[in-house]
Each structure stands twice: as C-alpha cells, then as structure tokens.
C-alpha cells in the first residue's frame, strides 16, 4: 500500500493542511496504509446480509443518474457565487443529497428536482411489488427535446435550454452563438485575438435531450440523448480532435491538411471530410461507427480498419468487426437523427435503452422475457404512453409503465 501524502488525508478528513489529526482520524489513515482497510472494504460472501447489500447496490446504481442530475443542477446554479471559494464544510454540517435536491428544486422550480425530492422522501416506504398487469400512468412523461449544457474551458456552464438566442460566449477567438432553431455555432470573431492555449469546450445532452453544434471548422455534429462531446473552441495544430461519449452524427467539413479525429472509449475514427455516425454509450461496451459517405479509418489499439460508405465498424474489446449494411439498415442507424425511434431489428434491451435515454425513465427487463420482432419507426415526439401502446402490439412482450420505470416482461397469453 502506498503511503498517502499528508495533505490528501487531511483534506479527506475535511481539514485544512495545517490542522493536526485526532487519534481517531490517524487510525482511519493507518487502516489504509497498513492495508487493513482492504479487508473492511470488501464484502464477505458469508455475510448474512449479502443479498441485502446486493439489492441496495442495484437500487443505487439505478438512481445514480438522477442524483447526479440534481447535484449538477444545483451546482450549475450556484457556480458563479461559489467559483472562487473552496468550501470546507465543517464536519457537523454535511450538505447531503436531500439538501441539494431541495436547493435544485427551489432554485429552478424544476420538476426534476421536486420529483427527486419526492422520491427521496418516499424512499423509505417500500415500493409495492410489481403486482401484475396494471399499467399505471401517474404523471405524463414527456419525450425528449432540444436541450443541452455547454461547458466552457473555465468550467463555466451554460444551460442552452433557457438562455435566449444570440451570442452566448466568446472563447479564444471564437464567438459562440445560439441559433433560433436550437443549435450552437462557433464562428471566428473579429474582435477577439487568438490565444496560444487550446481551450476545450464540451456539449452535454441529458437523458431526454438532443442538440446540434457547428464547430469552428464548419463541421456539424448532432448529439443524441445522454451524450457528451468535447472539442477545442478553435482547432489549432495539425489535426481536429474531438471526443465523444454516447452517440453523435458527424458531418465533417473537408480539410485535407487537418484530419478530423473522433475519440470514443479508446477507439479513434480518423476522417478527412465525410458523414458518419458514432455510437459509444458507456453501457454498451462497444463503439459502433457507421459511414454514410466519404471514407474513415477506425483504429483501436494496434488494429486499424478502413470502412466504406454503407459499412459499419464495431469495436468491442480489441476486436474490430466490419459489417455491410443495406440501405434500410443504414436508415435505422440514423433514425434518431431524423427524429425517429427505430424498432426494426432491435432487441428488447436496445428498445428499452432508447426509451431510457429519450424519455429519461428507468427501464427493467423481467427475467424470462423473450425476444420479439417489431417493425417500423415511431416519431420521437410521441408521448411515452402512446409509444408503449404501439410496442404492445407485438405478441410476446408486454411493456408497462410503473411509476417511473418501463418494464418489459413476457405476455401471458
């Protein structure tokens, strides 16, 4: 076990660097340096509460997105006031989740905040078991729409949903403006000189959001729900490198002297000027690149493959697989960009994933749910209730909304 630098332990214990540790606090640090902590960190398979812990773990995993959103909402709102103050909370006044959700709720009047708060308050009451076949709709769940957060190089965050159209920021020599049709555009501004440092911006869509950005070189990126794109405000140097988490459709402006590179989970997509889709959600463990036209090279570790229009490269593990896609299949890959939810050829899980991201609801597949064949597409503006009705026209799987969770299970015929 590595020894820990003093200031880290001090800070971890909520103290400033020159305050000495109490005996108890020294003990906690000693647990770490001696390696004893490794034992208590771990759960014993023989622990009688093993299943309880596992159940709680699942529950926490399911709500971590929601909690993060409320932390972020509260953080973004209080950022200007807090920016320079490093808040050292005294040990007795922890600011916990409920306080933050409350703050988020009050400050924004946000439905999300209130809802989270409501959920937290009610968390103790055991949620009644999923008693069969009652599709209850407590409150209408809205489809996603055009919204996102822009994070500037100095970590300032701009909520693109609420800010009016017009110039929203200057970054480097670029002027960033929000257009009336809900997209942002980077343009060279005459009044601002370029600095030497590369300033990275990121555009992040929440679940239930999508957005479009025109980058400094004129390349356009459509960002799907629950995704994030990181890019320099101005492209300097010999290439144009951006990084994506989630899904985006790229129309790259041609510039032979500066190759465009997209990084996603250790996979690199190298292009000159072209149109393609990259899908790299954390939950999927693979990066899928689908080429519409032009030519791109997909690199992961040591392997490098070129793909042609109509082909798809799927990187999973260290392997790159190339698949040919028919016109219809291509249309399905790009359905999201054209405002559609694709059902054709999708697994139950993949459909639930799309619903999860676009309607910002939790999803669950009950054990023993069979696969089913669905066809066609659904407009993304369709209310969730109607989407579920359409999905339920299939023979074998029942989709129901219970509270805030869409559940798929086998139909009892």
């Amino acid at each position: 076990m590595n020894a820990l630098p003093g200031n880290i332990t001090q800070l971890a214990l909520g103290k400033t660097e020159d305050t000495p540790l109490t005996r108890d606090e020294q003990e906690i640090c000693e647990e770490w340096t001696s390696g004893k902590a490794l034992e208590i960190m771990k759960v014993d398979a023989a622990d009688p509460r093993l299943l309880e812990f596992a159940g709680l773990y699942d529950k926490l995993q399911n709500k971590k997105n929601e909690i993060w959103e409320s932390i972020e909402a509260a953080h973004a709102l209080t950022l200007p006031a807090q920016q320079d103050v490093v808040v050292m909370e005294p040990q007795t006044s922890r600011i916990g989740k409920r306080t933050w959700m409350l703050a988020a709720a009050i400050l924004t009047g946000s439905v999300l905040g209130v809802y989270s708060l409501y959920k937290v308050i009610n968390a103790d009451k055991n949620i009644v078991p999923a008693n069969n076949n009652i599709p209850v709709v407590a409150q209408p769940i809205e489809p996603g729409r055009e919204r996102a957060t822009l994070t500037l190089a100095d970590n300032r965050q701009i909520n693109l949903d609420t800010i009016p159209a017009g110039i929203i920021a200057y970054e480097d020599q670029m002027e960033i403006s929000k257009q009336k049709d809900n997209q942002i555009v980077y343009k060279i501004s005459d009044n601002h000189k370029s600095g030497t440092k590369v300033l990275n911006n990121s555009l992040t869509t929440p679940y239930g959001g999508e957005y479009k950005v025109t980058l400094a070189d004129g390349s356009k990126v459509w960002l799907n729900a629950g995704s994030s794109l990181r890019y320099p405000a101005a492209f300097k140097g010999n290439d144009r490198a951006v990084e994506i988490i989630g899904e985006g459709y790229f129309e790259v402006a041609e510039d032979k002297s500066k190759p465009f590179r997209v990084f996603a989970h250790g996979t690199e997509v190298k292009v000159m000027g072209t149109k393609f889709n990259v899908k790299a959600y954390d939950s999927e463990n693979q990066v899928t690149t689908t080429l519409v036209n032009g030519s791109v090279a997909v690199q992961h570790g040591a392997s490098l493959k070129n793909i042609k229009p109509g082909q798809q490269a799927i990187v999973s593990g260290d392997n790159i697989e190339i698949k040919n896609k028919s016109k219809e299949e291509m249309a399905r890959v790009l359905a999201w960009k054209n405002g559609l939810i694709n059902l054709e050829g999708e697994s139950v899980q993949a459909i639930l994933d799309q619903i999860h991201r676009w309607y910002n609801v939790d999803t669950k597949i009950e054990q023993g749910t069979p696969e089913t064949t669905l066809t066609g597409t659904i407009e993304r503006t369709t209310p969730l209730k109607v989407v579920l009705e359409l999905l339920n026209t299939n023979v074998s799987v029942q989709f129901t909304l219970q509270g805030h969770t869409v559940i798929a299970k086998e139909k009892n015929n």
Partner: protein
Amino acid sequence: MRITNDLLARFNNNDPTAHEELFKTTFADLTVFVYRMINDEDESEDIAISAIRKLLSNKDLTFKAVEQLKAYLYISVRNGALNYLRSAQKEDPFRKLLQDQMPVSEEPVVNKKYEMDHMRKLIEAGLGKLEKQCAAVIRLTMLNKQPDEIAKTLNISPNQVYTQKSKGIARLRTFIEENGSKYGIPVVIILLAILCKLYFR
C-alpha cells in the same frame, strides 16, 4: 470500484466529464460501504454524496495514482460514518474485525471477500447457474421483498420460499468461493456478455 487511469487523468485536468463519471463509478460502492457500517440508507447516501462532492469541489486537488484517489474517498466516507456512529452512540461494526486481524498470512486461503462491484457481478453469474424458481426467490429477496410476498408473487408456499432461499444462498456462496478469482477484471467484459445472453434466454 474501478477507477481507470484515464478517468484519473481527466479528473486531474478538471475535465467536467470526469466529475460525472467519477460520481457514477463510486457512488453505489461508497454508499454500500457506509451502509454496512451505519445501517441507514438515506444517511449512507448523504455521507457518500457529500464526500464525492467535496472532492469534486476542490479544483486544486490532484492524485498521483488511482489508489490515492480511492484512499481519499474511503477515508472520507469512513470518517463521515464514524462521526455518525459516534453521534448516534453506536459501535463501529468493523472495529472488532480490525483488531482481530492478524498480519496477513502468506498462504492464500479460499478467498470469498470482494469489493461490492465485483461481488455484484459474481452474484449475477451465480444466479445464472441456479434453477429459475430458486433464482427468482433470490432476486425478489434482493428487492427487499418479504417471504410471504415472494410466495404470493411466485405462487409457491412460504415453506418453499425458505427452502429455495437457503439453497440458493448456499449455492451462491459456493459459486463465489469457487469462481471468485476467475472473474478478474479482464474477464468482466466477457462475463457481461454471458450475462446478457443468460438474461435474454
């Protein structure tokens, strides 16, 4: 809890995407750790969240290694949990364990202790090996359902619930002891693939 070097690097650079990822990677693990000490779900979440928030709000803090970052978080939540226990005048459940512990022996014994994220995967893999009904009883137990509720849901007698549960738990433990070390980190992805298959059977 698996923090990658890449995540650490981005965290050190104050990359906002790292904040979110770090929160999501650590939140459940830390909360369960605190919960094992203090036995209160809401408080555990609060302690974990405030530790992570404090870390994220300090823009100058950087770590040389993943282990250090992990140590920071565990020390921070352990301290929070101990403060809570002190104010509630309760004992630290780990104290005895920490005192009893002899110096680590060289002989590798049967390992059946894992960090929560790893343990959860092992349980999932083990559940896949159980009969359907047995696995269903375990899953519902994990959802905090009472035996009579489980009996009703699965349409079996309460007695069967007890037998299936104890059988299931025993078999899960054996599975974890036998297979725990096989599911090292590189296998996790393969494991996930198998899980998906099992899930969609």
